[in-house]
């Protein structure tokens, strides 16, 4: 019997496994769900915040410096808007062992 009769879905699965051999054993399981539940997580460091506040006291507010979204520590007081969104990208989990 010809065993080339694979459903398109299984063919796609084979493609995915070929690209990411270490893909989780639990398909559609906790990885996705945990990513979903953790949406919106940002990390706010009170140490950075206080250090920046202390620096501010001695310096004028930076006017020339463009608020660099990636430079949140020690330069100016970080606000939630400045913090880079920690995107819990599945790419990390796809490639990680």
């Amino acid at each position, binding site marked *: 019997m010809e065993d080339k009769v694979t459903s398109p879905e299984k063919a*796609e699965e084979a493609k995915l496994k070929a690209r990411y051999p270490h893909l989780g054993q639990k398909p559609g399981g906790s990885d*996705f*769900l945990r990513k979903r539940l953790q949406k919106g997580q940002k990390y706010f460091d009170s140490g950075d915040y206080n250090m920046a506040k202390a620096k501010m006291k001695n310096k004028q507010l930076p006017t020339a410096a463009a608020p660099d979204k990636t430079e949140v520590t020690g330069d100016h007081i970080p606000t939630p808007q400045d913090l880079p969104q920690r995107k819990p990208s599945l790419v990390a989990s796809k490639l990680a062992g």
Partner: protein
Amino acid sequence: MWLNQERSTDILFLFGYTADIISTVEFNHSGELLATGDKGGRVVIFQQEQENKTQTHSRGEYNVYSTFQSHEPEFDYLKSLEIEEKINKIRWLPQKNAAQFLLSTNDKTIKLWKISERDKRPEGYNLKEEDGRYRDPTTVTTLRVPVFRPMDLMVEASPRRIFANAHTYHINSISINSDYETYLSADDLRINLWHLEITDRSFNIVDIKPANMEELTEVITAAEFHPNSCNTFVYSSSKGTIRLCDMRASALCDRHSKLFEEPEDPSNRSFFSEIISSISDVKFSHSGRYMMTRDYLSVKIWDLNMENRPVETYQVHEYLRSKLCSLYENDCIFDKFECCWNGSDSVVMTGSYNNFFRMFDRNTKRDITLEASRENNKPRTVLKPRKVCASGKRKKDEISVDSLDFNKKILHTAWHPKENIIAVATTNNLYIFQDKVN
């Protein structure tokens, strides 16, 4: 009608509106008002023009009626969580008096908004000038009665209730009960029951959080109250199941009364099976006899009396089954499409990619694919049906699967409760179509 084969489909493009990314679309119970919510936390309400004698061949157009900022971004410092202001859902209350009420929700907080019109104002105060400044009392020599005079219509929106702090996870659904006094809100793991008058308390009616989060295998994806039975509601899961619960059975409805699930052929199971079976939307028919679910590739109609399989299944874009690998890589496989019924429950509609949307006529079993796009549509032109070519030789006017734009997705659609008018949201634009009245 929409899908008459004797003549080309007569669906007119009426109106387009550009906004921030639209995240929800909902007609009110009469269809006169259409509300949209967007990623920036704003709600825009459109009102249908009253029919006039010069427009006998179409119903009124929709114009902006009110715009207001419903939710603002917040930051939960305790949990280091950013709370998006994006409006996830809007649900209208049936109209009880001159004002209109709607519930709008973001990930964490539900708000009840009152939208009221003001078209008169009092004039002729004794102690105040018309601009509000107080008059010098010594100059007041006569007494007059202030009267109401007409003014330009002003539509005001004010938040009447704020229902907060009841959800640890992200709210995906709200649904108003047919008793018009209570409503439910559902997040990934819990469903709460609220009374519209009471904001400091809500009852938890479903809790699927496992004691050990490592054991988490499914989440709640949508929930809705039955349109007629105030004790009945359903909720769908990421594993493709729908549970119907009866609040008379117990206070905590963790045990379902009915479980709707289509058996799967285990030999067909793949890595993608569970992901594409995740239900992104569930909607009861107006009659209350059926419910419709949307999963990644199809729309299913279930008879509430039959739990073991749907009574109808419609393929939305089956040609994507051979593209699941790349759809997983670009995250499109997690897109949450909504679906809706027409007023008579005879046609269902849902969105797809490339700004296509699909309609299925349950009686004739015919379906159609249409496109919502400014380039192709001038107001009052008839839409041309589209066709996607899955493989092989592409006919003229067909679009091949590989040239579909997966960034142009139609996730939100709504159907007027009584007429053949539909609202379709592309990423940034709202389109309103109606069928041609001859």
